[in-house]
Protein backbone atom coordinates (compact mmCIF):
# COMPACT_ATOMS: atom_id res chain seq x y z
CA UNK A 1 0.00 0.00 0.00
CA UNK A 2 1.35 3.46 -0.94
CA UNK A 3 1.93 5.94 1.86
CA UNK A 4 -0.20 8.98 1.01
CA UNK A 5 1.70 11.78 2.74
CA UNK A 6 -0.76 14.49 1.64
CA UNK A 7 -3.77 12.72 3.13
CA UNK A 8 -1.98 11.83 6.37
CA UNK A 9 -0.69 15.40 6.80
CA UNK A 10 -4.15 16.87 6.20
CA UNK A 11 -5.88 14.50 8.60
CA UNK A 12 -3.18 15.18 11.19
CA UNK A 13 -3.24 18.98 10.90
CA UNK A 14 -6.94 19.58 10.35
CA UNK A 15 -8.51 16.70 12.27
CA UNK A 16 -6.27 14.99 14.84
CA UNK A 17 -4.61 18.14 16.22
CA UNK A 18 -7.94 20.03 16.58
CA UNK A 19 -9.58 17.07 18.34
CA UNK A 20 -6.67 16.80 20.77
CA UNK A 21 -6.75 20.60 21.14
CA UNK A 22 -10.49 20.60 21.92
CA UNK A 23 -10.00 17.78 24.44
CA UNK A 24 -7.15 19.61 26.17
CA UNK A 25 -8.92 22.95 25.84
CA UNK A 26 -11.86 21.79 27.97
CA UNK A 27 -9.98 23.14 30.94
CA UNK A 28 -7.79 25.70 29.12
CA UNK A 29 -9.68 28.51 27.30
CA UNK A 30 -6.44 29.96 25.92
CA UNK A 31 -5.69 26.71 24.08
CA UNK A 32 -9.27 26.51 22.85
CA UNK A 33 -8.87 29.85 21.06
CA UNK A 34 -5.50 28.94 19.50
CA UNK A 35 -6.57 25.69 17.84
CA UNK A 36 -8.98 27.35 15.36
CA UNK A 37 -6.27 29.89 14.53
CA UNK A 38 -3.89 27.02 13.79
CA UNK A 39 -6.49 25.42 11.49
CA UNK A 40 -6.96 28.80 9.77
CA UNK A 41 -3.20 29.15 9.23
CA UNK A 42 -2.82 25.70 7.64
CA UNK A 43 -6.03 25.94 5.56
CA UNK A 44 -4.86 29.33 4.28
CA UNK A 45 -1.27 28.40 3.57
CA UNK A 46 -1.78 25.05 1.80
CA UNK A 47 -3.55 26.45 -1.33
CA UNK A 48 -0.98 29.28 -1.56
CA UNK A 49 2.00 26.90 -1.27
CA UNK A 50 0.43 24.53 -3.81
CA UNK A 51 0.64 27.28 -6.44
CA UNK A 52 4.40 27.63 -5.99
CA UNK A 53 5.63 24.19 -4.88
CA UNK A 54 5.10 21.57 -7.62
CA UNK A 55 5.22 18.57 -5.30
CA UNK A 56 2.84 15.64 -5.67
CA UNK A 57 1.82 15.59 -1.99
CA UNK A 58 0.83 19.27 -2.15
CA UNK A 59 -0.52 20.13 -5.59
CA UNK A 60 -0.88 16.77 -7.39
CA UNK A 61 -4.34 15.34 -8.24
CA UNK A 62 -4.51 13.64 -4.83
CA UNK A 63 -2.41 16.24 -3.03
CA UNK A 64 -3.33 18.31 -0.02
CA UNK A 65 -4.74 21.30 -1.92
CA UNK A 66 -7.24 19.44 -4.17
CA UNK A 67 -8.23 17.32 -1.18
CA UNK A 68 -8.82 20.49 0.82
CA UNK A 69 -11.09 21.73 -2.00
CA UNK A 70 -13.12 18.54 -1.68
CA UNK A 71 -13.33 18.98 2.10
CA UNK A 72 -14.54 22.51 1.48
CA UNK A 73 -17.47 21.18 -0.59
CA UNK A 74 -18.40 18.89 2.31
CA UNK A 75 -18.04 21.77 4.78
CA UNK A 76 -20.28 23.95 2.61
CA UNK A 77 -22.95 21.21 2.90
CA UNK A 78 -22.64 21.34 6.67
CA UNK A 79 -22.93 25.14 6.56
CA UNK A 80 -26.26 24.69 4.78
CA UNK A 81 -27.36 22.30 7.54
CA UNK A 82 -26.28 24.84 10.14
CA UNK A 83 -28.41 27.45 8.38
CA UNK A 84 -31.45 25.17 8.51
CA UNK A 85 -30.90 24.49 12.23
CA UNK A 86 -30.64 28.24 12.83
CA UNK A 87 -33.86 28.96 10.91
CA UNK A 88 -35.74 26.24 12.82
CA UNK A 89 -34.44 27.45 16.21
CA UNK A 90 -35.21 31.12 15.64
CA UNK A 91 -38.66 30.57 14.18
CA UNK A 92 -39.67 27.94 16.75
CA UNK A 93 -38.77 30.43 19.48
CA UNK A 94 -40.83 33.10 17.77
CA UNK A 95 -43.87 30.79 17.61
CA UNK A 96 -43.57 29.53 21.18
CA UNK A 97 -43.33 33.12 22.51
CA UNK A 98 -46.15 34.32 20.23
CA UNK A 99 -43.93 37.19 19.10
CA UNK A 100 -45.09 39.67 16.48
CA UNK A 101 -45.34 37.94 13.10
CA UNK A 102 -45.31 34.41 14.63
CA UNK A 103 -47.84 33.29 12.03
CA UNK A 104 -45.35 33.99 9.22
CA UNK A 105 -42.71 32.02 11.14
CA UNK A 106 -45.15 29.11 11.25
CA UNK A 107 -45.74 29.36 7.49
CA UNK A 108 -41.97 29.40 6.94
CA UNK A 109 -41.43 26.30 9.08
CA UNK A 110 -44.31 24.43 7.41
CA UNK A 111 -42.86 25.33 4.01
CA UNK A 112 -39.40 24.15 5.09
CA UNK A 113 -40.69 20.85 6.48
CA UNK A 114 -43.05 20.05 3.59
CA UNK A 115 -40.48 20.89 0.89
CA UNK A 116 -37.73 18.98 2.70
CA UNK A 117 -40.06 16.00 3.18
CA UNK A 118 -40.86 15.93 -0.55
CA UNK A 119 -37.14 16.23 -1.36
CA UNK A 120 -36.22 13.37 0.97
CA UNK A 121 -39.13 11.32 -0.41
CA UNK A 122 -37.77 11.88 -3.93
CA UNK A 123 -34.34 10.67 -2.84
CA UNK A 124 -35.79 7.67 -0.94
CA UNK A 125 -37.96 6.49 -3.83
CA UNK A 126 -35.15 7.26 -6.33
CA UNK A 127 -37.61 9.46 -8.21
CA UNK A 128 -35.47 12.54 -7.73
CA UNK A 129 -36.70 16.12 -7.49
CA UNK A 130 -37.32 16.82 -11.19
CA UNK A 131 -39.76 14.96 -13.37
CA UNK A 132 -41.33 11.48 -13.10
CA UNK A 133 -40.70 8.96 -15.90
CA UNK A 134 -44.05 9.92 -17.48
CA UNK A 135 -42.95 13.58 -17.64
CA UNK A 136 -45.15 14.84 -14.80
CA UNK A 137 -43.47 16.81 -12.01
CA UNK A 138 -42.46 15.16 -8.75
CA UNK A 139 -44.13 16.59 -5.58
CA UNK A 140 -40.93 18.57 -4.88
CA UNK A 141 -40.97 20.04 -8.38
CA UNK A 142 -44.68 20.81 -8.02
CA UNK A 143 -44.06 22.78 -4.82
CA UNK A 144 -41.13 24.55 -6.46
CA UNK A 145 -43.11 25.46 -9.61
CA UNK A 146 -46.32 26.47 -7.81
CA UNK A 147 -44.98 28.22 -4.70
CA UNK A 148 -41.24 28.93 -4.65
CA UNK A 149 -40.76 30.25 -8.17
CA UNK A 150 -43.83 32.56 -8.27
CA UNK A 151 -42.98 33.94 -4.81
CA UNK A 152 -39.37 34.69 -5.74
CA UNK A 153 -40.43 36.26 -9.05
CA UNK A 154 -43.04 38.39 -7.26
CA UNK A 155 -40.55 39.75 -4.75
CA UNK A 156 -38.08 40.67 -7.50
CA UNK A 157 -40.70 42.16 -9.79
CA UNK A 158 -41.73 44.61 -7.04
CA UNK A 159 -38.41 46.29 -7.80
CA UNK A 160 -39.83 47.74 -11.04
CA UNK A 161 -42.55 49.56 -9.10
CA UNK A 162 -40.21 50.95 -6.46
CA UNK A 163 -37.65 51.96 -9.08
CA UNK A 164 -40.29 53.85 -11.05
CA UNK A 165 -41.46 55.61 -7.89
CA UNK A 166 -37.86 56.45 -6.93
CA UNK A 167 -37.12 57.68 -10.48
CA UNK A 168 -40.01 60.13 -10.16
CA UNK A 169 -39.48 61.24 -6.56
CA UNK A 170 -35.77 60.88 -5.73
CA UNK A 171 -33.57 60.90 -8.86
CA UNK A 172 -32.81 64.62 -8.90
CA UNK A 173 -30.16 66.81 -10.52
CA UNK A 174 -29.31 68.44 -7.18
CA UNK A 175 -25.63 69.07 -7.97
CA UNK A 176 -23.03 68.52 -10.72
CA UNK A 177 -22.25 64.89 -9.76
CA UNK A 178 -25.93 63.94 -9.58
CA UNK A 179 -26.55 65.64 -12.95
CA UNK A 180 -23.70 63.70 -14.61
CA UNK A 181 -25.06 60.45 -13.12
CA UNK A 182 -28.57 61.32 -14.27
CA UNK A 183 -27.50 62.07 -17.85
CA UNK A 184 -25.36 58.91 -18.07
CA UNK A 185 -28.21 56.80 -16.64
CA UNK A 186 -30.71 58.35 -19.06
CA UNK A 187 -28.44 57.69 -22.06
CA UNK A 188 -27.79 54.07 -21.03
CA UNK A 189 -31.49 53.44 -20.36
CA UNK A 190 -32.41 54.92 -23.73
CA UNK A 191 -29.58 53.17 -25.57
CA UNK A 192 -30.28 49.71 -24.19
CA UNK A 193 -33.73 49.53 -25.80
CA UNK A 194 -35.21 50.59 -29.17
CA UNK A 195 -36.81 53.57 -27.44
CA UNK A 196 -36.81 55.95 -30.40
CA UNK A 197 -38.24 53.31 -32.70
CA UNK A 198 -40.99 52.73 -30.15
CA UNK A 199 -41.78 56.45 -29.94
CA UNK A 200 -41.70 56.81 -33.73
CA UNK A 201 -43.89 53.74 -34.31
CA UNK A 202 -47.09 55.77 -35.03
CA UNK A 203 -45.20 57.96 -37.57
CA UNK A 204 -43.93 55.82 -40.50
CA UNK A 205 -41.98 58.66 -42.22
CA UNK A 206 -39.82 58.95 -39.09
CA UNK A 207 -38.89 55.24 -39.00
CA UNK A 208 -35.55 55.44 -40.90
CA UNK A 209 -34.23 58.41 -38.89
CA UNK A 210 -35.49 56.87 -35.61
CA UNK A 211 -33.69 53.64 -36.48
CA UNK A 212 -30.43 55.50 -37.23
CA UNK A 213 -30.70 57.59 -34.06
CA UNK A 214 -31.46 54.46 -32.04
CA UNK A 215 -28.31 52.79 -33.45
CA UNK A 216 -26.29 55.86 -32.46
CA UNK A 217 -27.78 55.88 -28.94
CA UNK A 218 -27.06 52.16 -28.61
CA UNK A 219 -23.42 52.71 -29.59
CA UNK A 220 -23.13 55.62 -27.14
CA UNK A 221 -24.60 53.54 -24.30
CA UNK A 222 -22.19 50.72 -25.10
CA UNK A 223 -19.23 53.15 -25.03
CA UNK A 224 -20.35 54.54 -21.65
CA UNK A 225 -20.53 51.00 -20.29
CA UNK A 226 -17.26 50.01 -21.90
CA UNK A 227 -14.97 52.96 -21.08
CA UNK A 228 -15.94 55.00 -17.98
CA UNK A 229 -17.89 52.17 -16.38
CA UNK A 230 -15.30 49.51 -17.31
CA UNK A 231 -12.47 51.64 -15.92
CA UNK A 232 -14.32 52.36 -12.67
CA UNK A 233 -15.28 48.69 -12.28
CA UNK A 234 -11.64 47.63 -12.79
CA UNK A 235 -10.60 50.00 -10.01
CA UNK A 236 -13.29 48.70 -7.68
CA UNK A 237 -12.41 45.04 -8.42
CA UNK A 238 -8.66 45.64 -7.91
CA UNK A 239 -9.34 47.55 -4.67
CA UNK A 240 -11.64 44.80 -3.37
CA UNK A 241 -9.09 42.12 -4.33
CA UNK A 242 -6.31 43.94 -2.45
CA UNK A 243 -8.63 44.27 0.56
CA UNK A 244 -9.48 40.56 0.41
CA UNK A 245 -5.78 39.64 0.12
CA UNK A 246 -4.86 41.76 3.14
CA UNK A 247 -7.72 40.25 5.12
CA UNK A 248 -6.57 36.74 4.11
CA UNK A 249 -3.04 37.55 5.31
CA UNK A 250 -4.44 38.84 8.61
CA UNK A 251 -6.43 35.61 9.06
CA UNK A 252 -3.45 33.41 8.12
CA UNK A 253 -1.18 35.26 10.54
CA UNK A 254 -3.78 35.02 13.29
CA UNK A 255 -4.16 38.81 13.59
CA UNK A 256 -7.81 38.84 12.50
CA UNK A 257 -9.81 36.74 14.98
CA UNK A 258 -13.32 38.10 14.52
CA UNK A 259 -14.36 35.01 12.50
CA UNK A 260 -13.77 32.82 15.55
CA UNK A 261 -16.74 34.39 17.32
CA UNK A 262 -15.04 34.06 20.69
CA UNK A 263 -16.57 35.66 23.74
CA UNK A 264 -14.93 38.11 26.11
CA UNK A 265 -11.83 36.79 27.85
CA UNK A 266 -11.05 34.17 25.19
Amino acid at each position, binding site marked *: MNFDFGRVALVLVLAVVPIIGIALGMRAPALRSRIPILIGIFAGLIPIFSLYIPKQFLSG*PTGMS*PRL*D*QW*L*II*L*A*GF*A*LLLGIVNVVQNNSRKISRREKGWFFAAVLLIGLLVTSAFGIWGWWT*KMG*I*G*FMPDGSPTPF*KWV*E*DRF*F*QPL*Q*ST*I*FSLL*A*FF*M*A*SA*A*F*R*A*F*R*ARNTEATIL*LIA*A*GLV*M*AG*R*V*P*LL*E*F*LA*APFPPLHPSASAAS*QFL*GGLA*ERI*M*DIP*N*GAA*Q*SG*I*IIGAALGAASMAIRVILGIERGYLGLGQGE
Partner: protein
Amino acid sequence: MKRIFTWLLKLDRRWIFLFVLFSVATPIVFPIGLPVTTTDSTRRAFEYLESLKPGDTIWLSFDYGPSSAPENDPMAEAVMRQCFLKHVKVVVLALYPLGGLGLANTAVAKVTAEFPGLRYGEDYVNLGYKDGAAAVMRRLGEDIAGAFPTDVNGTPLSRIPMMRGVHDIRNVKLVFTAATGVIGEWWITQVHSQIGTPVVIGPTAVSAPKYYAYLNAGQLVGMLSGMKGAAEYERLLRDTYPQMARFYKSTRTFTATKGMDGQTVIHTVMIAFIILGNLAFLVTRETGRPEAAA
Protein backbone atom coordinates in the same frame (compact mmCIF):
# COMPACT_ATOMS: atom_id res chain seq x y z
CA MET B 1 -47.94 75.18 -14.44
CA LYS B 2 -46.41 75.39 -10.96
CA ARG B 3 -49.66 74.17 -9.50
CA ILE B 4 -49.59 71.11 -11.79
CA PHE B 5 -46.01 70.25 -10.80
CA THR B 6 -46.78 70.68 -7.11
CA TRP B 7 -49.75 68.37 -7.54
CA LEU B 8 -47.51 65.91 -9.39
CA LEU B 9 -44.99 65.86 -6.55
CA LYS B 10 -47.73 65.15 -4.04
CA LEU B 11 -49.22 62.40 -6.22
CA ASP B 12 -49.87 59.18 -4.31
CA ARG B 13 -47.25 56.61 -5.29
CA ARG B 14 -49.96 54.00 -5.88
CA TRP B 15 -50.92 55.88 -9.08
CA ILE B 16 -47.32 55.45 -10.24
CA PHE B 17 -47.50 51.73 -9.40
CA LEU B 18 -50.72 51.41 -11.39
CA PHE B 19 -49.16 53.21 -14.36
CA VAL B 20 -46.12 50.90 -14.25
CA LEU B 21 -48.39 47.85 -14.12
CA PHE B 22 -50.23 48.92 -17.27
CA SER B 23 -46.96 49.88 -19.01
CA VAL B 24 -45.50 46.41 -18.44
CA ALA B 25 -48.67 44.38 -18.94
CA THR B 26 -49.86 46.02 -22.17
CA PRO B 27 -46.91 44.93 -24.40
CA ILE B 28 -47.11 41.41 -22.92
CA VAL B 29 -50.76 41.14 -23.94
CA PHE B 30 -50.33 43.06 -27.21
CA PRO B 31 -46.74 42.46 -28.47
CA ILE B 32 -45.22 45.34 -30.43
CA GLY B 33 -42.40 43.42 -32.16
CA LEU B 34 -39.70 46.08 -31.83
CA PRO B 35 -36.38 45.48 -33.62
CA VAL B 36 -33.31 44.20 -31.71
CA THR B 37 -29.81 45.40 -32.59
CA THR B 38 -26.77 43.33 -31.60
CA THR B 39 -23.71 44.40 -29.60
CA ASP B 40 -20.12 43.28 -29.98
CA SER B 41 -19.96 41.32 -26.70
CA THR B 42 -22.98 39.17 -27.67
CA ARG B 43 -21.68 38.64 -31.23
CA ARG B 44 -18.32 37.45 -29.84
CA ALA B 45 -20.07 34.92 -27.61
CA PHE B 46 -22.23 33.68 -30.50
CA GLU B 47 -19.31 33.42 -32.91
CA TYR B 48 -17.22 31.49 -30.40
CA LEU B 49 -19.98 28.91 -30.04
CA GLU B 50 -20.41 28.86 -33.82
CA SER B 51 -16.70 28.02 -34.18
CA LEU B 52 -17.06 24.81 -32.12
CA LYS B 53 -17.05 21.48 -33.94
CA PRO B 54 -19.64 18.69 -33.65
CA GLY B 55 -18.66 16.48 -30.72
CA ASP B 56 -17.12 19.30 -28.68
CA THR B 57 -18.43 19.75 -25.15
CA ILE B 58 -19.54 22.91 -23.37
CA TRP B 59 -20.36 23.48 -19.72
CA LEU B 60 -23.68 25.24 -19.02
CA SER B 61 -24.05 26.43 -15.46
CA PHE B 62 -27.42 27.61 -14.08
CA ASP B 63 -26.24 30.09 -11.48
CA TYR B 64 -29.49 31.97 -10.95
CA GLY B 65 -32.85 31.63 -9.27
CA PRO B 66 -36.48 32.33 -10.20
CA SER B 67 -36.08 36.03 -9.34
CA SER B 68 -34.01 36.62 -12.49
CA ALA B 69 -35.40 33.78 -14.61
CA PRO B 70 -37.06 36.06 -17.22
CA GLU B 71 -33.59 37.45 -18.01
CA ASN B 72 -31.47 34.31 -17.62
CA ASP B 73 -33.80 31.55 -18.87
CA PRO B 74 -33.94 32.77 -22.51
CA MET B 75 -30.13 33.00 -22.76
CA ALA B 76 -29.54 29.52 -21.31
CA GLU B 77 -32.21 28.10 -23.62
CA ALA B 78 -30.81 29.90 -26.68
CA VAL B 79 -27.29 28.58 -25.97
CA MET B 80 -28.65 25.04 -25.58
CA ARG B 81 -30.54 25.33 -28.88
CA GLN B 82 -27.42 26.52 -30.70
CA CYS B 83 -25.37 23.65 -29.24
CA PHE B 84 -27.93 21.01 -30.18
CA LEU B 85 -28.19 22.42 -33.71
CA LYS B 86 -24.41 22.18 -34.04
CA HIS B 87 -24.24 18.73 -32.35
CA VAL B 88 -22.15 20.19 -29.53
CA LYS B 89 -22.55 18.23 -26.28
CA VAL B 90 -23.84 20.08 -23.23
CA VAL B 91 -23.01 19.42 -19.57
CA VAL B 92 -25.65 21.10 -17.40
CA LEU B 93 -25.22 21.87 -13.71
CA ALA B 94 -26.42 24.34 -11.08
CA LEU B 95 -24.38 26.08 -8.41
CA TYR B 96 -27.01 28.57 -7.22
CA PRO B 97 -28.78 27.29 -4.11
CA LEU B 98 -32.10 29.15 -4.44
CA GLY B 99 -33.79 27.18 -7.19
CA GLY B 100 -30.96 26.87 -9.72
CA LEU B 101 -31.46 23.14 -10.17
CA GLY B 102 -35.23 23.45 -10.60
CA LEU B 103 -34.74 25.98 -13.39
CA ALA B 104 -32.05 23.81 -14.99
CA ASN B 105 -34.36 20.77 -14.95
CA THR B 106 -37.19 22.78 -16.52
CA ALA B 107 -34.99 24.36 -19.20
CA VAL B 108 -33.37 21.03 -20.13
CA ALA B 109 -36.77 19.31 -20.35
CA LYS B 110 -38.16 22.17 -22.46
CA VAL B 111 -35.29 22.48 -24.96
CA THR B 112 -34.55 18.76 -25.35
CA ALA B 113 -38.23 18.22 -26.18
CA GLU B 114 -37.70 20.52 -29.21
CA PHE B 115 -34.94 18.19 -30.52
CA PRO B 116 -36.46 14.68 -30.55
CA GLY B 117 -33.26 12.95 -31.74
CA LEU B 118 -31.24 13.86 -28.65
CA ARG B 119 -30.08 11.14 -26.27
CA TYR B 120 -29.41 11.71 -22.59
CA GLY B 121 -25.85 10.81 -21.67
CA GLU B 122 -24.65 11.08 -25.26
CA ASP B 123 -25.71 14.57 -26.32
CA TYR B 124 -26.32 16.18 -22.95
CA VAL B 125 -26.08 15.38 -19.28
CA ASN B 126 -27.42 17.01 -16.13
CA LEU B 127 -25.00 16.86 -13.19
CA GLY B 128 -27.43 18.49 -10.74
CA TYR B 129 -26.66 20.90 -7.91
CA LYS B 130 -23.62 21.09 -5.68
CA ASP B 131 -23.14 23.43 -2.74
CA GLY B 132 -19.97 25.49 -2.24
CA ALA B 133 -19.63 27.05 -5.69
CA ALA B 134 -16.01 28.31 -5.54
CA ALA B 135 -14.76 25.06 -3.99
CA VAL B 136 -16.62 23.06 -6.65
CA MET B 137 -15.01 25.12 -9.41
CA ARG B 138 -11.53 24.57 -7.96
CA ARG B 139 -12.21 20.83 -7.79
CA LEU B 140 -13.37 20.76 -11.42
CA GLY B 141 -9.83 21.69 -12.38
CA GLU B 142 -8.58 18.40 -10.91
CA ASP B 143 -11.36 15.96 -11.78
CA ILE B 144 -15.07 16.44 -12.38
CA ALA B 145 -15.97 13.18 -10.64
CA GLY B 146 -14.40 14.55 -7.46
CA ALA B 147 -17.05 17.26 -7.35
CA PHE B 148 -19.87 15.38 -9.11
CA PRO B 149 -19.45 11.62 -8.59
CA THR B 150 -22.88 11.03 -10.18
CA ASP B 151 -25.32 12.89 -12.41
CA VAL B 152 -28.66 14.23 -11.19
CA ASN B 153 -30.23 10.75 -11.51
CA GLY B 154 -27.51 9.08 -9.43
CA THR B 155 -25.72 7.46 -12.40
CA PRO B 156 -21.93 7.37 -11.88
CA LEU B 157 -20.11 9.61 -14.36
CA SER B 158 -18.01 6.66 -15.56
CA ARG B 159 -21.21 5.07 -16.94
CA ILE B 160 -22.20 8.18 -18.92
CA PRO B 161 -20.78 7.87 -22.46
CA MET B 162 -20.23 11.59 -23.15
CA MET B 163 -18.36 12.07 -19.86
CA ARG B 164 -15.69 9.47 -20.69
CA GLY B 165 -13.55 12.01 -22.53
CA VAL B 166 -14.31 14.80 -20.07
CA HIS B 167 -12.10 14.24 -17.05
CA ASP B 168 -11.71 17.83 -15.89
CA ILE B 169 -12.83 21.32 -16.89
CA ARG B 170 -9.87 21.64 -19.30
CA ASN B 171 -11.61 19.09 -21.54
CA VAL B 172 -14.57 21.38 -22.22
CA LYS B 173 -14.34 24.05 -24.88
CA LEU B 174 -16.35 26.70 -23.06
CA VAL B 175 -18.05 27.50 -19.78
CA PHE B 176 -21.32 29.37 -20.20
CA THR B 177 -22.71 30.69 -16.96
CA ALA B 178 -26.15 32.27 -16.77
CA ALA B 179 -25.65 34.06 -13.51
CA THR B 180 -27.00 36.35 -10.89
CA GLY B 181 -24.79 37.39 -7.99
CA VAL B 182 -21.18 36.52 -7.44
CA ILE B 183 -21.06 32.95 -8.84
CA GLY B 184 -20.56 34.23 -12.38
CA GLU B 185 -17.51 36.17 -11.25
CA TRP B 186 -16.04 33.04 -9.65
CA TRP B 187 -16.12 31.22 -12.99
CA ILE B 188 -13.77 33.94 -14.26
CA THR B 189 -11.46 34.08 -11.24
CA GLN B 190 -11.42 30.39 -10.31
CA VAL B 191 -11.74 28.69 -13.70
CA HIS B 192 -10.62 31.02 -16.49
CA SER B 193 -7.80 32.77 -14.64
CA GLN B 194 -6.41 29.66 -12.94
CA ILE B 195 -7.23 26.87 -15.41
CA GLY B 196 -7.63 28.71 -18.69
CA THR B 197 -11.02 27.45 -19.88
CA PRO B 198 -12.82 30.20 -21.88
CA VAL B 199 -15.86 31.68 -20.16
CA VAL B 200 -18.97 33.40 -21.54
CA ILE B 201 -21.26 35.01 -19.02
CA GLY B 202 -24.95 35.83 -19.15
CA PRO B 203 -25.54 38.10 -16.16
CA THR B 204 -28.65 40.03 -15.20
CA ALA B 205 -28.69 43.63 -16.46
CA VAL B 206 -28.18 44.86 -12.88
CA SER B 207 -24.89 42.98 -12.46
CA ALA B 208 -23.66 43.39 -16.06
CA PRO B 209 -21.69 46.66 -15.48
CA LYS B 210 -19.20 44.76 -13.27
CA TYR B 211 -18.35 42.32 -16.04
CA TYR B 212 -17.24 45.00 -18.52
CA ALA B 213 -13.95 45.14 -16.58
CA TYR B 214 -13.39 41.41 -17.23
CA LEU B 215 -14.52 41.78 -20.82
CA ASN B 216 -12.04 44.60 -21.44
CA ALA B 217 -9.27 42.59 -19.77
CA GLY B 218 -9.89 39.67 -22.19
CA GLN B 219 -10.96 37.36 -19.36
CA LEU B 220 -14.36 36.81 -20.94
CA VAL B 221 -14.98 35.58 -24.48
CA GLY B 222 -18.27 37.44 -24.55
CA MET B 223 -21.24 38.54 -22.50
CA LEU B 224 -25.02 38.43 -22.87
CA SER B 225 -26.05 41.43 -20.85
CA GLY B 226 -29.47 40.89 -19.28
CA MET B 227 -32.64 40.44 -21.29
CA LYS B 228 -31.22 42.67 -24.04
CA GLY B 229 -28.25 40.30 -24.43
CA ALA B 230 -30.60 37.32 -24.54
CA ALA B 231 -32.75 39.03 -27.19
CA GLU B 232 -29.61 39.78 -29.23
CA TYR B 233 -28.59 36.12 -29.01
CA GLU B 234 -32.04 35.03 -30.17
CA ARG B 235 -31.75 37.39 -33.12
CA LEU B 236 -28.33 35.97 -34.06
CA LEU B 237 -29.80 32.47 -33.83
CA ARG B 238 -32.76 33.49 -36.01
CA ASP B 239 -30.46 35.10 -38.59
CA THR B 240 -28.13 32.08 -38.75
CA TYR B 241 -30.58 29.16 -38.58
CA PRO B 242 -33.84 29.32 -40.61
CA GLN B 243 -35.46 26.70 -38.36
CA MET B 244 -34.80 28.96 -35.37
CA ALA B 245 -36.41 31.89 -37.20
CA ARG B 246 -39.52 29.75 -37.63
CA PHE B 247 -39.33 28.54 -34.04
CA TYR B 248 -38.99 31.98 -32.42
CA LYS B 249 -41.75 33.34 -34.64
CA SER B 250 -44.22 30.59 -33.75
CA THR B 251 -43.40 29.71 -30.15
CA ARG B 252 -46.00 30.64 -27.55
CA THR B 253 -43.51 30.46 -24.67
CA PHE B 254 -41.74 33.49 -23.23
CA THR B 255 -38.68 34.68 -25.17
CA ALA B 256 -36.33 37.60 -24.54
CA THR B 257 -37.39 39.17 -27.85
CA LYS B 258 -40.96 39.36 -26.54
CA GLY B 259 -39.71 40.62 -23.17
CA MET B 260 -37.84 43.48 -24.84
CA ASP B 261 -41.17 45.09 -25.79
CA GLY B 262 -42.09 45.42 -22.12
CA GLN B 263 -38.59 46.56 -21.22
CA THR B 264 -38.68 49.27 -23.90
CA VAL B 265 -41.99 50.62 -22.65
CA ILE B 266 -40.90 50.63 -19.01
CA HIS B 267 -37.58 52.32 -19.89
CA THR B 268 -39.56 55.02 -21.71
CA VAL B 269 -41.82 55.43 -18.68
CA MET B 270 -38.82 55.65 -16.32
CA ILE B 271 -37.11 58.30 -18.45
CA ALA B 272 -40.36 60.24 -18.63
CA PHE B 273 -40.68 59.99 -14.83
CA ILE B 274 -37.11 61.22 -14.32
CA ILE B 275 -37.66 64.20 -16.64
CA LEU B 276 -41.03 65.04 -15.06
CA GLY B 277 -39.69 64.67 -11.54
CA ASN B 278 -36.73 66.93 -12.26
CA LEU B 279 -38.91 69.56 -13.97
CA ALA B 280 -41.20 69.57 -10.96
CA PHE B 281 -38.17 69.75 -8.66
CA LEU B 282 -36.74 72.78 -10.52
CA VAL B 283 -40.05 74.63 -10.73
CA THR B 284 -41.08 74.07 -7.12
CA ARG B 285 -37.55 74.83 -5.84
CA GLU B 286 -37.72 78.28 -7.40
CA THR B 287 -40.92 78.98 -5.53
CA GLY B 288 -39.49 77.53 -2.33
CA ARG B 289 -42.23 74.93 -1.96
CA PRO B 290 -41.29 71.84 0.05
CA GLU B 291 -40.77 68.71 -2.00
CA ALA B 292 -42.67 65.54 -1.29
CA ALA B 293 -40.68 62.83 0.42
CA ALA B 294 -39.42 59.99 -1.76
